[in-house]
């Protein structure tokens, strides 16, 4: 929440790691004159008077989670009073340097054999002349602009031009930095497995999209619907970025990133009643390290045993 003081212009971002819900702009019409936000066209700002934001033709109806806004107070200065915008973080406060974005999409990543991709403010494709966001999802490109990474509605795609699938590769994922077939990602990954029944859709590969509480935030690669993060005490799997508050469906893990998610007692979370799952390093299949004769692993994350010595040569 943000208590908005008696100043004319305010900038800010909707959503914190504690909570986020969309907040009606019309409900704040007595305090706010006009709101500005970036259009996905990338070439203009959408401007919306709060007093008409209940119109079917309004371009901005709510302060929406994960969006930035500028707005100005309504009425004469003498009439201004302090008011609250739930889940809003003001972006023009003194001494605010500890307030940073936990991104839900990566800022940059490298795909093996393709190159390093960077988040953009929209497409800048010399072929089409277009400069815009695409499918209301972030668009990425290499520094030399030779390759773009964009969402086609069901998968991220790497190709030379946004919207053109010629010579493209897909990762069948909601996030851009999941592996593209055999082409590996530079991003950290984990694999979650073992959920059953209605919880099975939380199984699968998770890839790094940001940081929270000093550790990597992982997001379910295929759907983007689940987040695995460190709460400060334990690792947590949740369906609500990036919190267990507000009716989130979640299950607690341990103090290490790899380990067990355990709600077998049905009491440490919501929705995952009676469920357990395992979290493992997503870069390798642990079974590949097992010997033929026993289940013990030849290597661990902390220690690599030398299997062939000089004497054996």
């Amino acid at each position: 929440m943000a208590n908005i003081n008696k100043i004319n212009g305010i900038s800010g971002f909707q959503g914190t790691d504690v909570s986020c819900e969309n907040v009606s702009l019309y409900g704040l019409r007595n305090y706010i004159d006009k709101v500005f936000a970036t259009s996905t066209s990338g070439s203009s700002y959408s401007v919306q008077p709060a007093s008409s934001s209940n119109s079917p033709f309004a371009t901005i109806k709510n302060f929406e989670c994960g969006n930035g806004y500028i707005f100005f107070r309504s009425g004469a200065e003498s009439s201004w009073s302090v008011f609250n915008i739930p889940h809003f973080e003001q972006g023009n406060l003194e001494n605010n340097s500890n307030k940073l974005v936990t991104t839900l999409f990566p800022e940059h990543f490298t795909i093996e054999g393709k190159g390093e991709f960077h988040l953009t403010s929209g497409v800048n494709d010399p072929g089409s002349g277009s400069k815009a966001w695409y499918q209301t999802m972030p668009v990425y490109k290499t520094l030399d602009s030779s390759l773009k990474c964009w969402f086609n509605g069901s998968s991220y795609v790497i190709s030379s031009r946004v919207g053109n699938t010629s010579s493209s590769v897909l990762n069948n994922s909601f996030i851009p930095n999941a592996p593209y077939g055999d082409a590996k990602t530079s991003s950290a990954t984990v694999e979650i497995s073992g959920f059953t029944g209605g919880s099975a859709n939380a199984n699968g590969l998770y890839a790094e999209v940001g940081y929270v509480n000093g550790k990597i935030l992982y997001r379910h690669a295929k759907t983007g619907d689940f987040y695995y993060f460190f709460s400060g005490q334990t690792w947590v799997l949740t369906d609500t970025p990036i919190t267990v508050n507000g009716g989130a469906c979640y299950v607690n893990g341990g103090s290490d990133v790899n380990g067990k998610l355990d709600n077998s007692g049905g009491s440490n979370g919501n929705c995952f009643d009676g469920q357990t799952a395992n979290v493992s390093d997503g870069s390798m299949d642990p079974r590949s390290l097992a010997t033929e004769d026993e289940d013990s692993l030849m290597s661990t994350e902390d220690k690599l045993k030398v299997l062939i010595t000089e004497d054996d040569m």
Partner: protein
Amino acid sequence: MALITTSKSLGWYGVHGSDDCEPMSLHEHFGTYNSSGSFQIGKSGLSETEAKLISIWTMLPTGSAWPWNLNMEQKYRNHPISSLRELVKQHDEMKCGQMYWITWTGNKDLNIPGFVPTALGVDMGRISD
């Protein structure tokens, strides 16, 4: 890094990551003028003509919108009156934890590490300590 490719961009400066957030000096990055009035190229390598196509706006804590651009640098960076020099100094860096809106009409991409652009309908993240 984020690449600013569009002519309008509104976003938050400062990302949680493996490195600490550091403020970015705009005149050091995009250029300024010396006391003789000569353009001093910035770390970005943009020419004077290119750098003149950038305006980076902020909302000051007082509630007033304020720009940084080369015109401000040219007029006020080395002004003999100290109070006028403050006009450019009150907003000449991107600070962690602040919102900025950028107007850029050049053809190249602006590289601004740590800037998270936003757009209507795109859920880019959450603010956290």
